[in-house]
């Protein structure tokens, strides 16, 4: 019932399609991409897309500063973006979610401690903190994931804690405790199902943000290893030739926009659909 309501929403549909495009590209990359994304052709540098004068059919979207096929790099870049997005948002969800539930459920000094930590963390502008973390951790795709988790868990924590607090006031939670269920069981059985919809929304939004953070770190030069095709790296590489080959800059930007827009619409749509459902449920409850 929940899923059907969500599906009816236009946002979820459009967002879902965009995300699906990225997913398909990422999963089927080895079969979809016409070339190896790292294969260089030093005789075919900065070719325009195939339909423009000077373009070659072998390279549908042209080549970059090292003669690598732009289309192949975009497709494989989707894989990298998904890897970072999924791992980072799941990690942030787990870390922030657990701490948020713990803070909201137990209250008292536990809540104060965790909230204080969140306050401290959130005093850092996220871009600055992720940069500092990358300086400390070193370059590499897994470090990028780790850095995003370490920066963004706070948002999950704060939002979920607020949600948990409202849920805690519900009768069925007190009922569960009175019936003798332990803390973990109570959280698992009663609290989590109520906060799950919000979690899903947050994860979707977070995935969009992870893609953006990776791109920002790439432009600064502190993200993935040298032989990894990522959209942010494509942007960073193409800035120096932007007057001669603006396509190289525009295409990865479009890719990032498609992915982020998809995740945002999906998350937004889920939120609206599930909000409506929740207020409907409240009306039904005795």
């Amino acid at each position, binding site marked *: 019932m929940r899923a059907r309501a969500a599906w009816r929403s236009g946002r979820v549909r459009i967002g879902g399609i965009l995300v699906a495009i990225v997913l398909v590209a990422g999963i089927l990359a080895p079969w979809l991409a016409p070339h190896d994304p790292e294969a260089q052709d030093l005789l075919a540098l900065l070719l325009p897309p195939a339909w423009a004068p000077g373009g070659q059919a072998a390279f549908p979207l042209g080549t970059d500063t090292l003669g690598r096929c732009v289309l192949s790099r975009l497709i494989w870049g989707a894989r990298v973006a998904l890897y970072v997005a999924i791992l980072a948002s799941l990690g942030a969800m787990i870390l922030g979610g657990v701490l948020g539930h713990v803070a909201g459920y137990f209250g008292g000094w536990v809540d104060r401690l965790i909230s204080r930590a969140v306050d401290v963390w959130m*005093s850092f502008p996220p871009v600055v903190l992720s940069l500092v973390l990358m300086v400390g951790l070193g370059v590499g795709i897994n470090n990028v994931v780790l850095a995003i988790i370490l920066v963004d868990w706070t948002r999950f924590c704060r939002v979920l804690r607020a949600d948990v607090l409202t849920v805690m006031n519900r009768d069925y939670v007190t009922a569960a405790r009175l019936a003798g269920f332990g803390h973990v069981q109570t959280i698992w059985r009663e609290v989590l199902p109520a906060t799950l919809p919000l979690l899903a929304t947050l994860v979707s939004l977070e995935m969009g943000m992870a893609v953006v953070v990776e791109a920002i770190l790439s432009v600064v030069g502190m993200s993935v290893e040298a032989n990894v095709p990522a959209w942010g790296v494509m942007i960073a590489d193409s800035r120096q030739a932007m007057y001669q080959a603006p396509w190289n800059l525009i295409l990865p930007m479009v890719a990032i926009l498609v992915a982020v827009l998809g995740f945002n619409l999906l998350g937004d749509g889920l939120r609206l659909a599930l909000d409506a459902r929740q207020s409907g449920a409240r009306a039904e409850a005795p």
Partner: protein
Amino acid sequence: MIATLLRIVLRRLLAAVPILVLVSMMLFGILRLLPVDPAAMSVPPNATREEIETVRRDMGLDRPIPEQYVRWALTLLRGDFGTSIHYRKPVGPLLAETLPATIELALAALVVAGFLGIGGGLGLFHVRGTWKAAVGDLGSTALMSIPSFLWAIILILIFAVAFRAMPVAGRLDMAFARPPGTGFLLLDAILAGRLDLLASAAKHLVLPAFALGLSFSPPIMRVLRSGLHDVYAEDYIRQARLRGLDEGRILIGHAARNAMLPTATLLGVQFGFLFGGTLLVEVLFSFPGMGGLMVEAVRNTDLPVIQAIGLTYCLVVLAVNAVTDIVCLLLDPRLRAN
């Protein structure tokens, strides 16, 4: 009344202090993860092992980390921000040169975000219920998906590559010397009475400010619009309509004022993110602010500069948060009840 307000302000400021301390500890700790040797980096390439050891002892790098932190914190309190390894100069003046640029950019971006956000929010509300609103809604979600650095690149592509219309580098036309003063170019130009300097500084501020402002206006639009929704349900709006006031006057004169509070709060909260966003926008526009300095320090692993700038970013965010809280307390008497 003044006494209670002062007490609230003081309490708010004091609450920020332990956060600042914890922030500095966190910054220090993260950077010590690095397998980098600041002593080795401070000496010329020809230096011998013994010379490096001497420098290491001078810098206190052979002490345990907590002791190093305390030393750093104490020198910081004395106003000494350390010495840049790369520039071999004290960090304080470097910060003093670049901080005003970043703040000026952030404020300009806030103004742009405010105008676009408030204008957009009013507009969206005005056409509510029509198809235009649905389009506008989708549009604002789309806009929210474009981070500031992508806006920067888009604007550069349009205004520098496609049409060579606007400057995309620096704060001032190459021909001008920076006027002495505060470091806030617009202010300094006015104080010096130089219209040409003012025009040049403003022109250079436009694209970076829009890059940041465009990315931060959608949330403002939304908050204002939902704020207006709530306000319009109130009785006094119906009263005003009965009195015969036209919709435009009602919107601007009555409703907007009341919906401003959540909007103002949001602007204050957003400032933190906006301020962080200046980092990459500065790099892309070669804007000589803290962002450019930070990126260079990161590339050179210049620890003292990274620490000092990281701390400054947090300080500004904390200060703005505190000010926003105080302003909200002043504006809304209901919040003072606590």
